[in-house]
């Protein structure tokens, strides 16, 4: 194997820059796309200023609820005058001041004049934000009213264990959470119910999805040595050497798979620092299985080509088809329900769906063995 490593190095050192580019590309593009999508998401959210004049729990909760909305980007501010000026300059769509005494007002069931707001004629997000705040206030007010009703009832019935205000509120939250766990599903008679596993996947939901797409693409481009060397004029020399061309290609395939897996570990380290992707044994297994699978797939595709251009075009088409069957461009839930084998054909399955294998994990070795056996029989016939 040392001899093969030496011969590979002789090739690699001539193309170090381009190889480095393809090595770094998946991590770099993942970072660019995720950062870009985050920035775009931030830009598309309506900037709304919030000034908390009191730091009660209920006021902070209201701010947090608004913050969770995909439509709003909450900017917490200290100074009311500054907020007003920013609204005037259209740097903020609108600003809301949660006055002092908000929590007391909610607890006493008062729902009027709790929040002061600033807006302009161009505050397009003002009305939906007001409605959102109103619904949150209504919700808090309702909870508060419930708590006081229970406490009053306890007192009038002279109960020995009257719950406190906070205990009732906590109980309401715990009931809300447990009810949210209920999954409601509507299906037509005779139709099979869909499970949560059928839900679509977004490549942007974690770095691994995007990384797997770019890794597949870069693996195709890194494996172009296969077409170059397999069809080079030097192939005739392998007849007179210790390694047949087939052995040489297989050894290099192993070498590349191993090397690229090491680089995948570097990607993981990068994602740990960038996106807090923690180390886990199952994830290690998925990445290993993914790497072996795509290297086999790319190797087998490479064996079918003699011309680089047609190989590159096919590689790009395969990546596009993979993106499509991942369900990113068009929803694939229905297709997967009718043709479940399509999901297994996705070479990104291990990383995207956190599965131990895909169809290619089984098909790949079978095809490789057939290819190797074909060579043995051919040699035997020739010998």
């Amino acid at each position, binding site marked *: 194997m040392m*001899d093969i490593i030496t011969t590979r190095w*002789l*090739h690699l050192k001539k193309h170090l820059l381009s190889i480095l580019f393809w090595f770094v590309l998946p991590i770099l593009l993942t970072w660019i796309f995720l950062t870009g999508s985050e920035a775009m998401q931030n830009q598309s959210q309506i900037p709304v200023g919030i000034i908390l004049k009191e730091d009660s729990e209920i006021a902070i909760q209201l701010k947090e609820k608004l913050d969770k909305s995909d439509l709003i980007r909450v900017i917490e501010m200290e100074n009311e005058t500054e907020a007003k000026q920013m609204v005037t300059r259209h740097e903020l769509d609108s600003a809301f001041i949660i006055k002092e005494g908000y929590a007391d007002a909610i607890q006493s069931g008062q729902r009027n004049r709790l929040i002061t707001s600033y807006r302009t004629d161009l505050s397009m997000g003002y009305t939906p934000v007001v409605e959102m705040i109103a619904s949150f206030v209504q919700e808090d007010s309702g909870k508060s009213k419930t708590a006081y009703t229970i406490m009053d009832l306890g007192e009038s019935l002279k109960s020995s264990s009257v719950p406190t205000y906070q205990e009732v509120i906590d109980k309401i939250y715990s009931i809300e959470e447990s009810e949210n766990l209920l999954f409601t599903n509507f299906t037509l008679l005779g139709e099979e119910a869909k499970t949560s596993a059928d839900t679509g996947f977004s490549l942007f939901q974690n770095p691994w999805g995007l990384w797997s797409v770019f890794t597949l693409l870069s693996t195709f481009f890194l494996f172009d040595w296969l077409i170059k060397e397999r069809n080079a004029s030097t*192939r*005739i*020399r392998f*007849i*007179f050497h*210790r390694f047949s061309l087939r052995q040489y290609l297989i050894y290099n395939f192993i070498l590349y798979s191993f090397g690229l897996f090491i680089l995948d570990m570097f990607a993981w380290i990068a994602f740990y620092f960038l996106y807090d992707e923690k180390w886990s044994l199952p994830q290690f297994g998925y990445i290993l299985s993914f790497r072996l699978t795509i290297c086999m797939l790319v190797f087998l595709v490479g064996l079918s080509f003699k011309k680089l251009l047609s190989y590159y075009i096919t590689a790009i088409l395969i990546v596009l088809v993979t993106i499509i069957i991942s369900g990113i461009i068009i929803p694939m839930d229905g297709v997967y329900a009718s043709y479940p084998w399509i999901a297994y054909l996705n070479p990104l399955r291990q990383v995207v769906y956190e599965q131990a294998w895909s169809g290619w994990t089984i098909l790949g070795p079978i095809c490789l063995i057939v290819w190797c056996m074909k060579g043995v029989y051919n040699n035997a016939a020739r010998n």
Partner: protein
Amino acid sequence: MQLEIDNISKSFGKKKVLENLSFQVNSGEIIGLVGENGAGKSSLLRILATISKANTGSIRLGEWTYEKNRKQLRKLVGFVPQDIALWEDMTVEENMIFFEKLSWVNRSKDELKQLCEDMELLKWKEPVHMLSGGMKRKLNMAISLIHNPELLLLDEPTVGIDLRSKKEIAQYLKQKAQDDHKMIMYTSHDMDEIKSICHAVICIGNDPFYENLLREANMKIISI
């Protein structure tokens, strides 16, 4: 060591290329193969190089037969293809090291360099794409000699190169046959070259034109 070819024939479909060919080559002999294009010179070299098989007949190199011992024979045969089979982006040194690593034998870098210098190939650090045609031909041959084969087969090794390189290659081959007792067979269309190097010539296709030329040049013709 002796190369014995006994009654071999080769055809591609209905076209017979070689028919009942028999001859012998001894250690230290340089045998030229002549004949018109398509006569079967390259086909014969490819059979002797174990790249393809004869349809009938038998071939033996020393104790090994071509029918049963192809793997062992490949360690004894060196084949210089007509096309330049080199890595163009690598230097002379890298090409030699690359093929040495895949070879049956281990050669030191000094030995590899010496092999090139023996052929007057002195541009050790030069990338192949910067070499002249003659230099490329020499390197093409040097790589085929890394494993020190007993039988060296050259398919038009001097085609398209300058006179100086031709002379240097011819000189090297003569020395190789004489000093190391190697068997050398090679094809060429250059009669002067054939005359200056070869001990005997085989006229593939029994073309009277070539046979007359060889007789006029007082060349020893091996009857096939």
